[in-house]
């Protein structure tokens, strides 16, 4: 089956930051900002969190700001627990963010102010998608490629893929299952928690899983 599989063309996303010019200095203003800002800004601060390559103590920019800058740790815990991939539209993600913040404001109605210069800045991004120029025709080629493609390529296929319309999974597991017939490998890749790893961590896990699958294939071939 591997011989006839459609190839996997690695693509990549590079995004540039766009400012809305809007900011928030406390949780109340953050709430108002989230309610009023564009879908693109919600997308940027939630789905694209992993593209930024910073330390992933949280799972979105709102949680990070609440936790790091305002030291509103309870709020940051609640916000970090939101899984944007479990919602069908940006409107639903926005609604959930507002629900969590409203519940927090009911309990703690006098939130802290951020110092000047440490406000939350609402941004969007423009994503440029392009072919990485790397193609895998089988699992061995995929292993070599996944080790060396740019982090933006891992992001595109593992994270960005889930936010596309009607997509419920990442591109890698889809190709393993539909292209190569590797259901078990696909299942293992889908089992990776996207929120608990950096892009480099995801790369490492996928490479390990693919390598193990290749070893098994070779052992089976010998047997």
């Amino acid at each position: 089956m591997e011989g006839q599989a459609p190839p996997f063309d690695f693509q990549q996303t590079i995004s540039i930051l766009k400012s809305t010019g809007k900011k928030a200095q406390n949780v109340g203003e953050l709430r108002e900002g989230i309610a009023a800002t564009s879908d693109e800004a919600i997308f940027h601060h939630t789905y694209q969190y992993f593209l930024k390559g910073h330390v992933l103590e949280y799972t979105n920019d709102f949680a990070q700001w609440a936790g790091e800058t305002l030291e509103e740790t309870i709020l940051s815990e609640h916000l970090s627990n939101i899984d944007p991939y479990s919602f069908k539209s940006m409107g639903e993600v926005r609604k959930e963010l507002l629900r969590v913040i409203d519940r927090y404001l009911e309990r703690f109605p006098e939130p802290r102010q951020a110092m000047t210069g440490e406000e939350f800045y609402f941004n969007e991004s423009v994503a440029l998608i392009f072919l990485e120029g790397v193609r895998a025709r089988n699992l061995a080629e995929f292993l070599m490629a996944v080790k060396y493609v740019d982090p933006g390529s891992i992001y595109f296929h593992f994270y960005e893929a889930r936010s596309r319309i009607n997509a419920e999974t990442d591109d890698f597991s889809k190709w393993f299952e539909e292209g190569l017939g590797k259901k078990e490998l696909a299942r293992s890749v889908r089992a990776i928690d996207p929120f608990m790893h950096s892009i480099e961590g995801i790369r490492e896990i996928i490479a390990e899983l693919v390598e193990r699958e290749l070893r098994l294939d070779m052992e089976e071939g010998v047997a």
Partner: protein
Amino acid sequence: MISRYAGIAPKGDLLLIKRLCERFQGKRFLHVNSTREGGGVAEILQRMVPLLAGMGIDARWMVIEGDPFFFEITKKIHNALQGNSEYITEGMWEHYFEVNRRNSSVMDLDAEMVLVHDPQPAPLIEFRKGGHWVWRCHIDVSEPQKVIFDFLSFYARKYESAVFSIPRFAKALGIDEFIIPPSIDPVSEKNRDLTEQEVEETLSRFGIDTDRPILLQVSRFDRFKDPTGVIQAYRMVKKYNDCILVLAGSPATDDPEGERVLSEVREYGKGDPDLHILLLPPSDKDINALQRAADVILQKSLKEGFGLTVSEAMWKGKPIVGGAAGGIPLQIIHGVTGFLVHSVEGAAFRVRQILSDPAMGRAMGSAAKEYVRNNFLITRQMRDYLAVWYFLDQGRGNVLRV
């Protein structure tokens, strides 16, 4: 020429630059600013324009000319945008416009993409012939003198798009606004790899011992860079870890305040053979060598623009202790690529922490270098300018295929 960056810059950035340059092959990309030499903008343009030309873009860089009165006015505008109180008369605004008008009559402003840097040439937008016009503001306009900013916005809003260095500097102008941080050139004299011999040569010329850890701050002698605070922190560290402090800065030839600060610093550090105060030009190879020889680099600024010296230090793979001011928190991820501090005591404590745990210092330095590689190299800035051009050219969608 771009091939010099292969193996240094992220390959995705180089690939995107290549793809975008293929799209814009032969098209004209004009940069306009007000100085050919001096300052970070000119420094980057000197290197970026030939790189773009080498990729098949018809890249040009033009400099507007003005009389001393014009530059006096634009200095006032600059200071007011940074929050100082300045008064600009109607006559001054008229002269500011008139100088730009005169420049426009002798400049070839015809290009597919025009990037106008800073306030001095901003009124040139009134003489646009076609193409996409973008205003690039390098200044910290987070707390400007409102009336001056409002007047300048009159021109800024006429551009298709504006570019600021960090989100905090951006203003709601009602046009597309991008955040593009400045960058360093990894192959320039002040950032390229040096041999051990080159580093040793610098140290021995300045009589700096290598038998103890070296702390270094590279900056102008300016109160906002807190050089005396650095000396205080060094003295606190020295009680626990015998070390050497090097303060290296550019000579303050045109700044009387700088001369005063330098003599204060000299007075404050008098009689300490382990404290070296060096006057060096900012682009010097010696700065590069000092950064490579240092064990910990400080940038204890109290107020800062972007603070690119931080990225320069990080590029040398060194742990850095920086004041949480201006663009420094964008470069230092606290506890990962360095430490952010808010006081002299904080600086001393973090330096001691790094000196006591060299393995942590090495890990931080290595994370710092990678962070700069991915975020603050000239290729990333070049990529972003081309991306803004592509965005304007392709109907301004948030997702673009190249």
